[in-house]
């Protein structure tokens, strides 16, 4: 496809047929694409590490960069991209969505917990395509899926599979699983059990780290941690690695160096599976990181990357289809024609059976990219990326009418 400035109108006068063809090819002229990013904040407790304190513009900053990238491309296709952002409390989420839909915005990226994402997708129905940029819940990709709900954020199953593949590749198959007591932690623990079964690892022992409340930070709290964690982890079955399932951020960062047995820690601390880390440099990521930092004055978090991805999915679909119609964009995104470069070494695409974006998962020690899954040797008949997360036969999602090219 060639996009030119200029003189189609003169040519059009010559032949009506050509005129129609040129006109339809040029629907990109002054095309306006309006998207929104809706972040729903729950008042959670403080993170264990102050390095993890969420910035005010978490996610929003990524949406901003994605929109700017789209806009740069839009200059050449006569397309304008705008982004409305809203940050609201859970009780105001529906109202905020209604207001955005009322403005005629049909492309909404959402950062919220799984239940809220599901509720907003239901509420939007056919009026909008919702891009889930944060919730990892597997049921949203299975029984609780919705036809207007696409997931750019990886699922818990994808994250757990990515880590366990690496552990198996390392020949560290004996896992000591320690999980938290909140529902998200239990769900993550279940993802690790599933991953261990899938790839031939073995969970040799499980322990629960109960959240008994209390302050996250106390002066010289490490003194107590240094005594508590060894005791908590002693006399475990022989294991190669400790895997922490602590989505609630209650205990995992305390594990490394404090476990009874000298074993590496992975999962919610230590070697962590993520969609993004600001340490990542491969595949041209350095320029991307720098672009983000220049615009926002801070490093990129996974949530920012996911919001950026949501905007780039929209931008790429608009560029290739020349349309701003949400339904048409959704269909294109789910088709074989869609592909997107996302600084992870291979194109990212969508699973047509549940709307989940296929993507490599980075394994980081929060200082470097240690490895990237899928690992060598984990094969799949369609794409090695489908070894991560819910494959077609595993997903209970029936809302997607499969789209054939």
């Amino acid at each position, binding site marked *: *496809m*060639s*996009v*030119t*400035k200029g003189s189609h109108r003169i040519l059009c006068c010559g032949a009506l047929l050509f005129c129609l063809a040129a006109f339809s090819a040029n629907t990109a002229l002054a095309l306006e694409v309006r998207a929104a990013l809706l972040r729903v904040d729950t008042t959670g407790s403080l993170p264990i590490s102050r390095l993890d304190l969420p910035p005010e513009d978490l996610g929003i900053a990524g949406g901003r960069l994605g929109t700017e*990238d789209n806009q*740069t*491309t839009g200059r*050449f*296709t006569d397309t304008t991209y705008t982004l409305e952002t809203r940050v609201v409390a859970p009780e105001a989420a529906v109202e905020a969505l209604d207001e955005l839909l009322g403005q005629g915005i049909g492309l909404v990226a959402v950062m919220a917990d799984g239940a809220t994402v599901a509720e907003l997708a239901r509420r939007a129905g056919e009026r909008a395509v919702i891009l889930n940029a944060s919730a990892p819940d597997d049921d949203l990709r299975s029984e609780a899926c919705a036809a207007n709900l696409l997931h750019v954020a990886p699922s818990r199953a994808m994250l757990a599979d990515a880590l366990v593949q690496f552990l198996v590749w390392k020949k560290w198959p004996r896992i000591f699983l320690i999980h938290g007591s909140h529902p998200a932690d239990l769900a993550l623990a279940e993802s690790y059990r599933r991953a261990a079964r899938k790839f031939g690892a073995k969970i040799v022992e499980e322990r629960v780290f109960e959240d008994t409340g209390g302050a996250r930070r106390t002066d010289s709290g490490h003194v107590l941690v240094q005594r508590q964690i060894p005791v908590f982890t002693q006399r475990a079955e022989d294991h190669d690695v400790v895997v922490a399932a602590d989505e609630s951020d209650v205990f995992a960062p305390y594990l490394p160096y404090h476990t009874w047995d000298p074993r590496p820690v992975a999962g919610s601390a230590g070697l962590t599976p993520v969609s993004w880390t600001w340490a990542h440099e491969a595949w*041209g990521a*350095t*320029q*991307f990181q*720098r*672009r983000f930092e*220049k615009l926002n004055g801070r490093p990129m978090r996974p949530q920012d990357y996911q919001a950026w991805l949501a905007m*780039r999915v929209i931008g*790429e679909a608009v*560029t*290739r289809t020349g349309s701003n119609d949400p339904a048409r964009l959704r269909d294109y995104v789910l088709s074989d024609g869609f*592909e*997107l*470069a996302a600084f992870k070494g*291979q*194109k990212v695409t969508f699973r047509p059976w549940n709307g989940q974006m296929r993507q490599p998962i980075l394994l980081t020690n929060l200082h470097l990219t240690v490895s990237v899954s899928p690992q060598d040797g984990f094969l799949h008949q369609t*794409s*090695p990326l489908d070894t991560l997360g819910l494959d077609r036969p595993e997903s209970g999602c029936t809302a997607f009418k499969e789209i054939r090219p």
Partner: protein
Amino acid sequence: MIRPGLLVLASLLIAPPALANKVFVTNERGNTVTVLDSASWEVIGEFPAGNRPRGITISPDGKELYVCASDDDVVRVFDPHTYEELHTLPSGPDPELFVLHPSGNPLYIANEDDNLVTVVDVKTRQVLAEVPVGVEPEGMAIRPDGQYIVNTSETTNMAHFIDAESYDITHNVLVDQRPRYAEFTADGSKLYVSAEIGGTVSVIDTAAGEPSIVHKIAFQVPGVLPEWLQPVGIRITEDASRVFVALGPANRVAVIDGKTDEVSDYLLVGQRVWQMAFTPDEAFLITTNGNSNDVSIIDVKAEKVIRSVQVGEQPWGVVVAPE
């Protein structure tokens, strides 16, 4: 003392009449340039080239060697005979690839961080123009008649056609994901653009009028995952009969028939094959193999890899001195 001299003399007598050229290879991680001799394929030198040297080219008169020192945010200019650094050229941050005007001046540099193509006069060392392009400009090519410059932008996924006089963008052609490299045929009638993540090479008709894609080359190698068939560097024979495409982590160079634009063969080279350069007589094609720290030498006529030569750490770019 006498014997080595005799041996040199003897080898000169035996050697084929082909002229030896210096081959310069940038080592991205080693921070050096390795110099090879194109007759013996021996390493004859290595010199420091700044931090993270990548793109490399040489002036048509063979007097100045230009190296993108990506982490120094400059282009370093070396004397190809003494390996002394002569001076630097302003490039904007993180220069990666550039193209020199066929006359030897100016130099067109893709400036990834600022979404610009920077035009630099290599004599006065001044920036002549900055052209705003798409997100993450990368590949650079110039039509051999000097009429326009082409830049590819990796996140916008376009080839931008820039008028060499006015620096206005006249056309934008949408290609597949992450376009990396652009190369014209010698007569300027066709432009090949590789899309690393899309896994294709777009063939763009640039003979006359509006440039448009006439063909897309896809790749398929038994036993290699399609995800790893990532086209990067491109080289075309002077007569446009054959096009060579480096396929990155697939460790292969595709040979393409320049008439039909169909793949005729795949040559197994080193790991993560990246950029390539012909010797001036087109007898050999040298490929840089980033993950095996070597270059592969391809006999162009026979379409055979004849040998590999260890160079520095993570070889990236390559240029051969003119006759």
